[in-house]
């Protein structure tokens, strides 16, 4: 059982401040500086979790922010990482993935069914009708934490950061790299996922030099240090996402040094997952940072020098090491300083034995006698520390584009080729002895600074090192199984062998079939052993097996960090205040806030809209159309340019007139529409759909970059407001306000004039989108509000909103691009052939239209009406002879006509007026409709 030791030099805890917390509804105390897991360990709590599949008891494994079995539900927040989350006074924590609590978890009985739940069982079972039910059950049993909708929300901003050199990892190598880069004049950002910098310095044997490094880094003016911060992903051009406690920072660096070190790997033997079985480096972290002993009788399994150093470190602090079990056949470790402890060699671990409460109480091994024979023994212990090997923490380095290869002598994957600006240092670079590590890191820091500052970097070759840090294959299968390779997913050796037998014999396939490496730790402590097992099963060397590349994120990232502050750009017209005053009901359309309709007392929505429609039809209505795209096209070639861009003709347009402008793409598909008005010989004023302005403007620029015509464009969309005064009374109401003659003879339909309304310069276009008589009045943004009030000063004018506008244009039979057309609609199908001038020398989409003309239409946009009220909606399908024959694109009840009308795409053979069509409503009922000519309302 773990316990707290007397003070340890450099410990991270404050023994003067005791904190109270709850775990699984039991009260405990810890110390300020503890993490949740360390506080529980110090309290002797060995079982912290239940495993994912079999609900086996689990405890600390690595204590390095990788363990899936150290996730807790804390004060309503799921999946809190116990290894690194600071303990807080009053905290209430509980295990995740349990039913009825950690101790009495009802799902622990699943282990009895283990033989029926091999890897991939769900691919083969539950076929047929039962699958959905079983899937829900399996998902329910497999959850990690519970989201509580009523939990307090936490704001997490994002920010951008910039530096010359980003150093990831603040252990000895990271500190050295940061110092060198900073000394060379680079601005350095140094990050580490732990609460304090230093990493393995306390147990590295470099405490003196290490203290100097720490002091230098802490006081260096060129270094910014971020602790409790991890690099979640590497993206192009040295763009790195950093996850800080309360925000995400997006860093752009000139160069990046990866000093991320190694991840210790577990040995694989029966019951290697029991609480009390943990890695050696976990024990060192517990010991040096939190003054916690891993147990009272500790056994060490080792296959490297690090295991011996571990034994010495524990003994120095008064922890009893009862056994040192070397897997290697011969004496290869340094036994000095171990006192009476004699290492055994050639040890084969058989199984860990659980005691009451589920924690380890003994370890069964086969010892090799001097005669060479093996003897099975049971060793009493309450902790088993595994120091059998390491894998490089190379995930981010691989994301940065580095290549790695396996070196047999050191039993480690090492970086081969690194992209420019990317540097690896220290243990990640295959340099293990601490003095050599620091020297290697200084060199990497110098090179990174040189790269970032625009000089030629010089990186020394990796120093030669042949010390093996890992056992070649620390995997010891047992006939009764439970030798866990992946503790996140409860993957055993036999599961991987079964995957290979089934034919999933590459790392990618084995991963996907078995889920190896797909848990929260993303294979950091399982991929390497899995590759070893696969290599052995296939009779290949490990060097021939390519490990899977871990994609971002390095650790799971809380969704709130990704969401950030939640910016939602929103546009408002210059008339926003006026609409508020008129009690507009708002909607968002194309990024703009627009009035959907205006409230009238207690009238329901539908009636408000109907009233607005009737007002336009009988008198005059005013709508804010400031959202329309507005682009000025200047220059001697303006008309010729528009002839090329649009399907119609504009170079022959008279000054003072406008024309419908239809924009196609090169496939002849309708993309946008509007009106082009000619205000001068070299000046056109072009409108686009709401939300289409940016794309159209971009296309104008792109095409002219190719054509190089003498033309300039100004996107004035947001800088101008626009109103549409529509209805039979619109002329009579507008005439007194303007200084030009609006009579039909002088200002005909499609006329365009520059005028003054009061003192305000305006552009007036005579349009007919919603009614036969109507005027669009365009003015500067700052003047639009005054114009609105001036026109609304007449009692005869009624404001109308977007919904009324939709109904009004539908009554006129006018299509809306991207509602009544889609990504396959050409102008002939949409009834817009009148806007196409095929005789022009060239326009975008012309060639494709010739092909469409020859082929004939596959569909036709038609008007229809219904004889009675019905629940027909947009996108309802037209059905003919049991097949889909089209769809409804627009539908509304017309207050003017007193019946339901709409537009639909249908087969050409059903497009003739008088044809019958059938529409399938949401409840499956077939609604008969009749094709009619448009407009539905003629002169109005």
């Amino acid at each position: 059982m773990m316990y707290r030791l007397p003070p340890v030099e450099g410990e991270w805890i404050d023994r003067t401040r005791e904190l109270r917390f709850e775990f699984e509804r039991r009260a405990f105390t810890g110390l300020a500086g503890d993490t949740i897991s360390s506080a529980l360990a110090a309290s002797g709590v060995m079982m912290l979790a239940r495993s994912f599949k079999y609900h086996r008891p689990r405890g600390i494994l690595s204590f390095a922010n990788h363990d899936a079995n150290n996730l807790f539900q804390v004060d309503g927040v799921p999946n809190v990482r116990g290894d690194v989350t600071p303990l807080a006074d009053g905290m209430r924590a509980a295990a995740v993935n349990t039913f009825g609590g950690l101790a009495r978890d009802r799902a622990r009985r699943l282990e009895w069914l283990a033989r029926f739940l091999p890897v991939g069982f769900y691919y083969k079972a539950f076929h047929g009708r039962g699958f959905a039910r079983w899937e829900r059950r399996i998902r329910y049993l497999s959850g990690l934490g519970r989201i509580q909708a009523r939990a307090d929300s936490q704001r997490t901003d994002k920010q951008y950061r910039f530096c010359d050199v980003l150093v990831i990892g603040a252990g000895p190598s990271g500190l050295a790299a940061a110092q060198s880069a900073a000394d060379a004049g680079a601005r350095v950002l140094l990050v580490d996922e732990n609460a304090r910098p230093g990493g393995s310095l306390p147990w590295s044997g470099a405490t003196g030099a290490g203290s100097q490094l720490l002091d230098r880094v802490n006081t260096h003016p060129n270094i910014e240090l971020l602790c409790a911060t991890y690099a979640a992903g590497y993206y192009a051009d040295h763009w790195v996402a950093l996850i800080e406690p309360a925000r995400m920072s997006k860093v752009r660096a000139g160069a990046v040094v990866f000093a991320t070190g190694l991840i210790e790997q577990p040995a694989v033997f029966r019951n290697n997952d029991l609480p009390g079985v943990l890695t050696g480096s976990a024990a060192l972290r517990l010991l040096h940072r939190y003054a916690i002993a891993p147990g009272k009788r500790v056994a060490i399994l080792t296959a490297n020098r690090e295991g011996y150093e571990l034994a010495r470190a524990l003994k120095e602090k008064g922890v009893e090491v009862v056994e040192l079990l070397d897997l290697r056949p011969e004496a290869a470790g340094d036994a000095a300083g171990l006192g009476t402890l004699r290492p055994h060699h050639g040890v084969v671990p058989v199984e860990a034995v659980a005691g009451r409460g589920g924690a380890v109480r003994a370890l069964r091994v086969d010892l090799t006698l001097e005669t060479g024979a093996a003897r099975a023994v049971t060793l009493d212990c309450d902790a088993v520390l595994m120091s059998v090997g390491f894998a490089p923490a190379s995930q981010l380095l691989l994301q940065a584009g580095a290549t790695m290869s396996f070196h047999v002598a050191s039993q480690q994957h090492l970086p081969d080729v690194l992209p420019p600006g990317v540097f690896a240092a220290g243990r990640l670079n295959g340099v293990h002895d601490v003095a050599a590590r620091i020297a290697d890191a200084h060199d990497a820091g110098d090179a990174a600074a040189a790269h970032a500052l625009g000089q030629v970097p010089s990186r020394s070759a990796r120093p030669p090192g042949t010390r093996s840090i890992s056992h070649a294959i620390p995997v010891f299968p047992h006939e009764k199984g439970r030798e866990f390779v992946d503790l996140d997913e409860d993957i055993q050796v036999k599961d991987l062998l079964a995957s290979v037998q089934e034919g999933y014999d590459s790392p990618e396939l084995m991963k996907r079939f078995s889920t190896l490496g797909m848990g929260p730790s993303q294979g950091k402590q399982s991929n390497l052993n899995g590759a070893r097992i696969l290599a052995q099963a296939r009779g290949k060397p490990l060097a021939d097996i390519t490990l899977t590349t871990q994609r971002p994120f390095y650790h799971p990232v809380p969704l709130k960090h990704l969401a950030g502050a939640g910016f939602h750009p929103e546009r408002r017209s210059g008339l926003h205040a006026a609409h508020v005053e008129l009690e507009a009901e708002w909607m968002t359309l194309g990024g703009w806030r627009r009035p959907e309709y205006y409230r009238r007392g207690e009238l329901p929505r539908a009636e408000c809209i109907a009233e607005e429609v009737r007002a336009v039809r009988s008198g005059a209505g005013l709508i804010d159309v400031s959202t329309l795209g507005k682009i000025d096209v200047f220059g001697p070639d303006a008309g010729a340019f528009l002839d090329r861009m649009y399907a119609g003709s504009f170079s022959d347009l008279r000054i003072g007139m406008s024309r419908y402008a239809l924009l196609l793409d090169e496939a002849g598909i309708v993309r946008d529409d509007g009106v082009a008005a000619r205000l001068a010989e070299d000046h056109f004023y072009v409108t686009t759909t709401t939300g289409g302005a940016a794309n159209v403007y971009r296309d104008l620029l792109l095409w002219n970059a190719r054509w190089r015509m003498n033309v300039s464009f100004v996107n004035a969309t947001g800088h101008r407001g626009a109103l549409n005064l529509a209805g039979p009374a619109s002329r009579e109401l507008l005439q007194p306000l303007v200084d030009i003659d609006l009579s039909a003879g002088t200002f005909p339909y499609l006329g365009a004039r520059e005028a003054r309304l009061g003192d305000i310069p305006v552009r007036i276009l005579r349009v007919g989108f919603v009614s036969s008589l109507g005027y669009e009045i365009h003015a500067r943004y700052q003047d639009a509000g005054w114009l609105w009030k001036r026109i609304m000063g007449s009692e005869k004018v009624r404001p109308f909103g977007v919904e009324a506008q939709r109904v009004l244009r539908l009554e006129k039979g006018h299509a809306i691009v991207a509602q009544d057309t889609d990504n396959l609609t050409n102008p002939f199908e949409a009834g817009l052939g009148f806007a196409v001038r095929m005789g022009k020398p060239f326009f975008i989409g012309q060639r494709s239209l010739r092909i469409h003309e020859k082929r004939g239409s596959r569909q036709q946009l038609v008007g229809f009406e219904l004889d009675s009220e019905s629940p027909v909606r947009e996108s309802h399908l037209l059905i003919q002879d049991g097949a889909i024959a089209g769809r409804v694109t627009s539908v509304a009840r017309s207050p003017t006509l007193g019946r339901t009308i709409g537009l639909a795409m249908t087969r050409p053979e059903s497009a003739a007026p008088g044809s019958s069509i059938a529409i399938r409503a949401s409840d499956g009922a077939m609604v008969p409709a009749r094709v009619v000519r448009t407009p539905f309302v003629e002169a109005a």
Partner: protein
Amino acid sequence: MSRRDAAWLAEPVAVKRVGLKGPRAGAALARLELAVPQQPNTWSPLTDSDGAGSANVVCRLGASEFFVEERGDAPGVVALEALLRSRPAGTYPVLREDFAFVLGGGSADEALAQVCNVNFAALPFEARPVVMTLMIGVGVLVLPQVSDDDGRCFRIWCDPSYGAYLFGELEEIVTRISAGRAQ
């Protein structure tokens, strides 16, 4: 807490703006004896009598577009507007109804870091750069300038339809930063 430590926002008053573009736009400025920034994406004081911290500026946006802002009677802008009304060849008016404001203070960089991925701190102010970029989804024009009291400030212009959104979000950020500094 002084303005030096905090971040602050202000909206300019009594300014006139005009834009122009085209192959002869620079010549139009020169004809009126107004400054013509030599390099694209730089700015100059509008006239010789305007200093480096002046509110009267002309920005060169790309190769052949200019944007002028002037305070008070704005004789330069008035003259330019008159010239543009006469429709000189190769010079076209650009309507500028921008929403404008100034962000300053010692924590201005911190506020900008939350909304924009340009490294403003690294910009050489003495080279008088203007930056066209995006801020939380809005296209903006940013002019870093040395201010009299706080050392540095950033003049920001955007499409007026985005003004309420952009200013509102920045106001919230500046308030939080200032509150954090005060603690």
